[in-house]
């Protein structure tokens, strides 16, 4: 009975918040394409060519974290959103909630993707493709090569030794950095269990003891760029490549222990009322031109998933395009815990942040 009451109340509250969400929508019209995105997709240099070619306005809403993104969808009316950018490992969460539409593989350049980033374990559910990887990179060691010895950056031991104490920042996102801590103690990121958490926590605490700050994207990027710190744990091309012209001293390494491979995907909403345009958008983003623009977005750079991306030689050099086969061979998958382990990992992260 109380459960029914709860459901009814929740239903009414959802309806009310959905109405509010509609009011707040960025002037959306039926012919528009409405996209839930990360900041790299908000770059006009990426969106304008698509809008002009198709006579459509792309309304974008940025979100941080899959949980926040899915909450926006749940509080909206079915059909409000057409496409979504999402962590590749989280596509099954959207599929479980019945949000996504299978994508037509024959109309997408799946064969041109770097094989290691297809992520079929996450992007294909029940034999159907629900997401396509569009961009990837590494959570590894970002550093200023004029301030640290690049040879030291070939081992994660440098992160917990005394040599760089107080010169280190940690990227504030628990999954990739927990993945790095796991690599540092010789664990495979795909096989992490609750039993591994005490050792991972001990490694994280050692990193924290050496760190000046634990910062989100902007804070950690700023700290490295301004010389506040010389090393960023969890950094990679997504931090250094975009700043390469202003600060060529910034670089990243894939240490001997390996790195954590991150990847983001595009998915289409099942209830989209504009599926043809949504597919065109996904096709555009996955095209060689779209991939080059996405890879070099003003918000952050990253490797294009499509190996045929139309990058210039300079851009390829900055992204270390030709070194990717070696990097991919040494990288390990992004931790993809179930809900219970995810909670425990976040609690370990909270303990690390609170440690003095």
């Amino acid at each position, binding site marked *: 009975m*109380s*459960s029914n009451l*709860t459901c009814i*109340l*929740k239903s009414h*509250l959802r309806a*009310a918040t959905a109405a509010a969400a509609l009011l707040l929508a960025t002037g959306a019209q039926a012919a528009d394409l409405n996209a839930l995105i990360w900041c790299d997709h908000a770059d006009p240099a990426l969106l304008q060519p698509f809008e002009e070619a198709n006579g459509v306005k792309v309304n974008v809403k940025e979100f*941080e*974290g*899959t*949980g*926040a993104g*899915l*909450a926006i969808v749940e509080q909206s009316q079915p059909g409000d959103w057409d496409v979504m950018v999402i962590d590749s490992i989280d596509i099954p969460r959207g599929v479980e909630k019945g949000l996504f539409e299978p994508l037509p593989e024959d109309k997408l350049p799946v064969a041109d993707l770097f094989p290691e980033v297809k992520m079929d374990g996450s992007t294909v559910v029940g034999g159907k493709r629900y997401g396509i990887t569009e961009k990837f990179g590494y959570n590894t060691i970002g550093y200023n090569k004029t301030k640290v010895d690049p040879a030291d950056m070939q081992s994660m031991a440098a992160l917990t030794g005394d040599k760089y104490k*107080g010169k280190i920042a940690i990227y*504030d*996102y*628990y*999954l990739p950095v927990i993945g790095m801590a796991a690599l540092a103690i010789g664990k495979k990121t795909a096989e992490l269990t609750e039993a591994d958490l005490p050792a991972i926590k001990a490694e994280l605490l050692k990193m924290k003891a050496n760190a*000046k*700050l*634990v*910062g*989100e994207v902007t*804070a950690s990027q*700023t*700290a490295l760029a*301004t*010389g*506040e710190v010389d090393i960023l744990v969890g950094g990679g091309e997504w931090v250094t490549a975009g700043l390469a012209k202003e600060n060529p001293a910034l670089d990243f390494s894939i240490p001997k222990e390996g790195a954590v491979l991150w990847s983001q995907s595009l998915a289409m909403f099942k209830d989209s009322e504009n599926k043809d345009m949504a597919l065109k958008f996904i096709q555009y983003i996955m095209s060689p031109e779209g991939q080059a623009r996405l890879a070099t977005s003003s918000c952050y750079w990253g490797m294009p998933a499509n190996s045929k991306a139309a990058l210039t030689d300079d851009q390829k050099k900055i992204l270390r395009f030709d070194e990717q086969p070696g990097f991919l061979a040494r990288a390990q998958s992004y931790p993809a815990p179930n*809900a219970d382990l*995810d*909670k425990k990992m*976040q*609690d370990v992260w*909270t*303990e690390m*942040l*609170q440690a*003095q």
Partner: protein
Amino acid sequence: MGVTANNSRALPWALVTPALGWTLLFFVLPFLAMGLSSLTAHEGGSFTLANYSQFLTDPSYWRAMVNSLEVTAIVTVISVLLAYPFAWILAEQVPERWQRLALMLAVLPFWTSYVVRSYSWLLVLSQNGVINRALTNLGLVAEPLQLANTRFATVTGFVHFFVMLLTLTIFANLKQLSPSYRKAAADLGAGPVRTFLHVVLPLTLPGIMVGAFLTFVLCIGDYITPQILGGNNELLMPQLVMMQIGRRGDFPLASALSIILMAVVTVAYLACARWLKIERA
């Protein structure tokens, strides 16, 4: 006659209905929704008290509350100590015709974006910032001090903002104070210090408490300043709340933590209610 009496009873209700409706729609209903959410499990949605017990049993969670209370108390005390003399100078020493300009200058920090202001402090306090450069160039320190990404930085950012707020409330209180109180005290033989301690200060306590309460409420619920200036070297309650939402979307736990935060604010209100004078209504 009866119609007039009915009208006179209906008019006050008609006047307060918009405010009541607003409060119901944008405070009571969301608060109920949050309370309901806090009593459900993240997975499955069944009834549970686990979200509250997590806060009580996990030291890293209640540490966030301790951190929040410590930072808020430090900010409030420092802000009051800085704002009172500032407000007193404005009210008593600055000529009446310049007071408006002086007040406008005092609230200038409010005109800039909160986020921009916090990032500006980060630049000022950073290793290569103005303060560290001045200290090292003057030979006062050999190595730059770690000022940014610390609790000190968070407190500095907060105090910069809240001193202005407290100045306004105390200034308003000082201006309302009739000069005859001081004259009477002087007639009775009290010197300036005694007059201040026994007459002016007690009479301006409501202004201090209103400002201090607003500082407490705004400070303990603020996410931006500790996130930008604190360097995540310790977590405060708003950061802990946001953490539950980002990736996992754990709204029930975030709701429970928010309710606990609201309970603390309510206790602070009850402690200050005597001076906030709400009971007069």
